[in-house]
């Protein structure tokens, strides 16, 4: 289980970073989303993996999973949405103002088009 989690985290991170380095705003936001998933699960996994042990106090529960990383990640997920929304709005507005959705603005996109 630990191996599956670690490898999936690695793949998700790699894909997120690759998309993050693209030249257009939309894939960058997608990359950011992938990266947030990876980061959230990573932090959560720092509390180790426990099955059938939710951190809800019950009289007959033998063990509990670590609640602290969960609390951290819960707010991180919600803030992640706020961040995605903000970056998306930035991207939409930038495209609207410059006429291009390249991350470096219209000039860079124009230059690239010429090179090609």
């Amino acid at each position, binding site marked *: 289980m*630990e191996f599956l989690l670690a490898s999936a985290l690695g793949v998700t*991170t790699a894909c997120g970073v690759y*998309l993050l380095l693209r030249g257009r705003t939309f894939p960058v*936001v997608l990359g950011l989303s992938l990266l947030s998933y990876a980061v959230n699960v990573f932090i*959560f996994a720092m509390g180790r993996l426990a099955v059938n042990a939710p951190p809800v106090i*019950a009289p007959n529960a033998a063990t509990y999973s670590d609640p602290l990383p969960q609390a951290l990640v819960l707010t991180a997920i919600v803030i992640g949405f706020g961040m995605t*929304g903000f970056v998306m*709005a930035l991207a939409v507005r930038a495209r609207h103002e410059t006429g291009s959705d390249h991350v470096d603005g219209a000039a860079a996109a124009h230059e690239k088009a010429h090179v090609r």
Partner: protein
Amino acid sequence: MTLPIIILLPLLAGTVLALAAARFGRNAAAWAVAAVAGASLALTLLEMPAVLAGRPLIVSWEWLPSIGLNFSFRLDGLGLMFALLILGIGLLIILYARYYLSPADSIGKFYSLLMLFMAAMLGIVLTENLLLLFAFWELTSLSSFLLIGYWSHSAEARRGARMALAVTGGGGLAMLAGFLLIGNIAGSYELSAVLDARQAIHDHPHYTLALVLVLIGAFTKSAQFPFHFWLPEAMAAPTPVSAYLHSATMVKAGVFLLARLYPVLGGSIEFEYIVSTVGLVTLVFGAYVAMFKHDIKGLLAYSTISHLGLITFLLGLDSPLSAVAAVFHIVNHATFKASLFMAAGIIDHECGTRDMRKLNGLWKYMPHTATLAMVAAASMAGVPLFNGFLSKEMFFAEALELNHLALLGHVAPVAVTFGGIFSVAYSLRFIHDVFFGGEPSGLARIPHEPPRYMKMPVEVLVVVCIAVGVLPAYTVMPLLAVAARDVVGGPLPPYDIAIWHGFTLPLLMSAIAIVGGVIMYWLLQRKFNLQLHAPASLNARLLFQNSHDGLVRLAAALTAGLQNGSLQRYLALLVTSIIALGAWPFLQNGYHAGNAALTPANGLAAAVWAMTLVAAAASVLLHRERFTAVILVGVVGLAAALTFACFSAPDLALTQFSVEVVTTVLLLVALALLPQTDPAESRPARKFRDAVLALAAGAGVAALAWAVLTRPHETISWFYLGESVPAGGGSNVVNVILVDFRGFDTFGEIIVLGIAAVGVFALMDGMRATRAAQAAGSAPLLLSVAARALLPFALLVTAFIFLRGHNLPGGGFIAGLVTAVALVMQYMADGFSATTRRLRPDYTRVIGWGIMTAGVTGVASWVFRAPFLTSTHGHPRLPVVGEVPLASAAVFDLGVYLAVVGATLLTLSVITGAGRHAPAPAQEKV
């Protein structure tokens, strides 16, 4: 309490009063600052008898005891002598500047800066704490920067100011490093403790390092070779500034520091060699260069360098008498050099130039000023009956006592005699070139005597020169004795300062210097014609300038290289640095997996794993088809939610599921405003580079996760698990942490969320765009009907999730997101306009109410005299319903709920609503 007031008066009252009084004219400003400086002087004089009687005054208040910084002051003999110089000459400068500055100059600004400088200087000499001393030290650098650059329209002034700040401020930083070392060894930054720790400091292996660092500070400030070059450049300052800073105060701070720390650092062979050699070189070098300067102030600047070298040389020697001579010369140099600078300023003021090739024969036009300048110059040259002679003779005597220093012992007597000859020659040149030898040439106006009161400060100082020179025992002796005792750090041997000691070797050296100097000047004039001599370019200054320019170019190139405006490059650099930083410990210590017991995998886990891998990889491969990519990224998000569910995090799973829904909706409505595909523009090399970076990052994260997951678990969570029910009144520990234990964090987080949503609102404000054609059209009827019917149920579920949140998975965050999902469904089913008409929402208000509810809950605990956000809980019995668990945290959670609902829906509705107003199509211009 008097001591800090002496400093605070000019610092607070002086700076402000100068600016305020300047509105009422130049006289008012001068009177105001003179009154402040006079009050400080009076306070100092009040304390004087005790200090002269040998009882230094030390007062201390704790300021930042954790770093050893105290608000502590000390008035001992050395400090008293300097304070009297600073305040006494400061008063004369105030009077002089009143007449020197033209009505066009802002006199308020000048006096205000002068007061700031005076306070900083007093701080240096009166502080007991080394860190405080450093603060005042840098304050003198800053205020002198402003004073030198007072005529900020002149490029020369700006350059001189910059150079002075760079050299003296930089030296101050070295000094701070030295202080930190000393304070570490002594265990305190209080001067008394440091003085007591002399032996420990000398025995410490870092002694030499600390010594050199402190010396760099002192040498830069006192313009010692090779840091001397800033002083001649600083002559671009108005002359009152030069007369004050560059004769009596600022440059004396360095020798003050040497004198102050002499009992701690002195007495070692390193100290003696470094300090006296640097002093000797500076002494001879400065005097030599001074002879060839055509600018009066340039000549005086190099003469100052030379005299500071003389004082440094004396302080370097391991002899109590040389300390007396050094302290004596500090006073004497301040008096004659300040008066000479002021005389130079008068000449400049009346003739419009300071160039000695143009100034000649001024005796005829300003005999009064000429007489004053001649007395001061005679003192500078060391002519008997003037104060300079006395200290210089002591200096000659000390230079003869260096037999224990081998080579230096042989060189010093010859070198100091040559220094004496040069100093007579340049003094003679100043007097002869300016006041005699023909007629002035090329002056704009006929010079005449300055206003009456402009000469008065010079007269006062010249009277002091003569009085001290003739009657040393009745004027400065008592002050000198206490000051020198503080330098030596113990009782002084008997000594006698008098004009006549009989025919001695030092007297012979004085005679040789005077006669030699006259011959030297005569030879230079006859053989080389000094007037035509072109001064060689100053190498040290050029070196400084070149390295300065080089640094600026380097910084510009670095900035241009790193910050070229390309987000792609920034992100690549960022990712690379993070990978490098993350890999560093592994490369250092090697990579080891732990050996903790692993959890066995099951079929579901393998399926989720495969789903993640396929979806993530596909999202990269297909990312140019944006719609497909959004769906694939959503799949990865669902996998994350399943992971949370699988590993005992029901709250996280619920949150992730609902966020996934709103994020996907958000990405799709935004995509409608953007191109549907990515152009193929990355070149193979770029793709390869990015792939390498991505794989390295992924491998790093996987390796790190594996390394942690295979190690045993240690956590601080037992506290939360144990205290959740008794202290928080809830059994869902995650929720109790969020709304109770770490409620303040959550409060901050909902504020951030609100700001992000309001930021989206602001970004999209006034945007006019239309969406792509496929967004038009109405939703299926079935969905529309079902959504309306479902809404009340969805809200009921939301209430349930919210209420049970404290004890079972749920709570404000999740309930808020589920509400948002329900409302988003309404938008999708009924269309944006219809839903907006029906609900008439104002989501910014909802955010505001949410944050306010949470904040008021926190403040409410103040009513019960408890800290912010203290929670309470109970189980009141209600009729019919029975016992209900209630916690004040639930009200806080309600605030969270409202903020989440508001922020989510504001973001979505604003982006969805963009472009509803105008039909004008926006074209893709690329």
